[in-house]
């Protein structure tokens, strides 16, 4: 046991002392904070709204086009040419001109938009829908001789508020967007770290082989002790890295909240209210959000997530996934003499990892589906896929089963990898085939 400690210590210290570790420790949280803040910020704030001047030759649309949070319509009753020129005059308040020609009634595709800055695709869709709606209303009015109010009454506005309900009947309106982002970010970190640190295990093993120190060491300790010492030592490096990241990220986040959180202007407040009121799903957040800036809003969103659970699961699945893959990477390192030979053996290991990240997109949309269920139980994909699901809330038995399977398969793969390792580290020269490696697993020393 004492010897394993020595190995863990060496593996840990030599890596933590490296410059690359320090660099990654500092750059990591900046990226991490950016990953957390930017999507949330983009999702709730929209700066490039367009002021559209409507040049309506039919006079059917005046006052009928509804403003959205991205588009404000205005009417100046002038020619198209004047309106276009006005786009570039100093006192002009418009950013685009919407030209609706007389023939629109018979040829609906003749509407034109002239812009300075390209509007979003969704803005154009919105304008098309608005024009179509008005034309439809007009036709309905004419056909059935209905009043304007009667026609607009035909179209009620429907909004769905999604609620999570548990056995005790408690309901909670969840912000799915944040759960999605959080789950995906954490899953990406697990994916990234399994690769980063798994490859470090592999490199460490190859280094010991190419430096020919391996035989010196295994005349003092058992190969399995050396392998486990290396895997655990690097796991501690990873945990240290995550620890530094979490501490620094929290610092950046807390800093951002204090700096921007108090800096509320009425302008910002009303802007947020406007955004929230047009978004029925998020309406229950509107009250909380209205007394804070964008950062307060993120903070309030975060409060809806069970962070101790998420962080606890993150650490478990991160470690479990790393240990599972780490032993496989160690076996690959032992089987070859140099890194260029690793490709062939890396394939079977990387495929489930990459597959998990691909499936993660599907799981994010449907966190309780079949694919999500089985994917988050299968040990080679569960560290990533379960992490995507956890912020949405997963049944305890499912999490427990997934954890149990992960532990069992970790023990299994470690035993198997240990057998490959024990023989592989003393083999030099020819790259072994999968068949030979299979033989190593069954032979005794």
């Amino acid at each position, binding site marked *: 046991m004492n010897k394993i400690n020595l190995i863990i210590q060496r593996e840990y210290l030599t890596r933590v002392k490296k410059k690359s570790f320090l660099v990654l420790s500092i750059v990591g949280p900046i990226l991490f904070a950016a990953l957390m803040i930017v999507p949330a910020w983009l999702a709730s704030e929209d700066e490039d709204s367009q002021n559209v001047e409507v040049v309506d030759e039919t006079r059917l649309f005046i006052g009928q086009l509804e403003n959205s949070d991205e588009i404000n319509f205005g009417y100046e009753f002038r020619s198209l040419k004047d309106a276009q020129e006005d786009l570039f005059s100093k006192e002009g308040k418009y950013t685009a001109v919407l030209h609706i020609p007389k023939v629109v009634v018979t040829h609906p595709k003749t509407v034109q938009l002239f812009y300075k800055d390209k509007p979003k695709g969704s803005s154009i869709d919105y304008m098309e829908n608005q024009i179509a709606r008005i034309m439809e209303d007009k036709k309905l009015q004419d056909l059935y001789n209905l009043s304007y109010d009667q026609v607009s009454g035909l179209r009620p506005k429907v909004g769905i508020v999604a609620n999570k309900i548990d056995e005790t009947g408690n309901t909670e309106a969840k912000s799915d967007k944040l759960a999605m982002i959080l789950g995906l970010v954490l899953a990406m970190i697990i994916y990234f770290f399994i690769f980063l640190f798994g490859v470090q295990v592999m490199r460490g093993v190859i280094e010991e082989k190419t430096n*020919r120190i391996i*035989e*010196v060491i295994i005349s*003092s300790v058992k190969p399995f002790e050396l392998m486990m010492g290396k895997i655990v030592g690097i796991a501690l490096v990873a945990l240290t890295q995550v620890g530094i990241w979490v501490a620094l990220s929290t610092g950046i986040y807390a800093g951002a909240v204090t700096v921007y959180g108090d800096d509320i202007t009425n302008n910002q407040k009303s802007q947020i209210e406007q955004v929230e009121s047009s978004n029925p799903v998020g309406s229950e957040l509107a009250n909380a959000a209205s007394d804070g800036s964008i950062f307060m809003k993120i903070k309030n969103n975060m409060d809806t997530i069970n962070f101790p659970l998420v962080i606890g699961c993150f650490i478990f699945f991160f470690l479990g996934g790393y240990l599972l893959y780490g032993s496989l990477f160690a076996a690959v390192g032992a089987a070859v003499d140099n890194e260029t030979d690793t490709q062939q053996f890396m394939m079977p290991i990387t495929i489930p990892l990459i597959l998990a990240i691909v499936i993660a997109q599907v799981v994010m949309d449907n966190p309780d589906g079949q694919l999500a269920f089985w994917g988050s139980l299968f040990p080679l994909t569960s560290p990533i896929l379960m992490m995507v699901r956890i912020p949405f809330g997963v049944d305890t038995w499912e999490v427990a089963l997934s954890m149990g399977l992960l532990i069992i398969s970790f023990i299994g793969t470690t035993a198997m990898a240990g057998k490959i390792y024990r023989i592989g580290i003393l083999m*030099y020269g020819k790259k072994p085939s999968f068949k030979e490696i299979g033989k190593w697993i069954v*032979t005794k020393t």
Partner: protein
Amino acid sequence: MSSILKAENIVKQYAAHRALDDVSIDVPKGCIYGLLGPNGAGKTSLIRIINQITRPDEGQVFFDGAPLAPEHISQIGYLPEERGLYKKMEVGEQAMYLAQLKGMSKREAKQKLSMWFKRFDISPWWNKKVEELSKGMAQKVQFIVTVLHEPKLLILDEPFSGFDPINTNIVKNEIYRLKEEGTSIILSTHNMGSVEEICDQIALINNSKKILDGTVKQVKQDFKEGIYNIEFKGNMISFTNALGAACELLNSENLDGRISAKVKLAPNISTNDLLKAIVGQVEVFGLQEVIPSMNDIFIKKVGENSIKKEANDE
């Protein structure tokens, strides 16, 4: 003399290849034991079994009278043929690490290391990274790490490779010194010159089998073929005539007027008989028995064995 290490009827099978076939060796205490054999003969397999890196399929190993067990690891020092150090680690730090893996305490390791570093005159390297050292320098560090924990048994696999003659001599002297202090040493090498010089006993392994063992002196005696070197002045033809049918002239060469000839005597002829026969014919300056070198014995035995094996295989 009791033995420090005794391996009995060791068999080791790797898939289709039998690495060791019923090999027994007995290394007496305080002796330098040469483990000889061509590449791939099975030496490293045997050494790995002694180091408990692998286990034998059959047979038993005794260390100092007791069956080999994990606690013996700290009493064995092993310098593998394939050896190296962590390149990115500092020399001192690394030596400390390896010493502690052998079970030494931090304090003890530090104290012994500084003594050895002084002895090898390498104290200034303590904080250097291994990659900054030359091959010979790294070998010195490696040697120190092997012997630092004062093992009862030292296993050196090609210890002189990578050393220049000066450093070879330093290491040789260290081996002698360790022997005097009571360490038993197994030396595996191809360098027959150093075997002859250093080893007390040898075992020769070829094709997974032990084909020869004994003290160096005895082995050499056993391989004598009754060949003598005669140095004389005179007529070569009369010398040949004097030898007669009982002695066979193997070769001769002319050295500044003197002739040096190798003669093989028939079993019933003594050196005195030979002298009597030639004294009247030529002027004799010297007569010396030719003792085979370990190199000759090695080549002869291994050659014979390989021919035999080929014949068997067919």
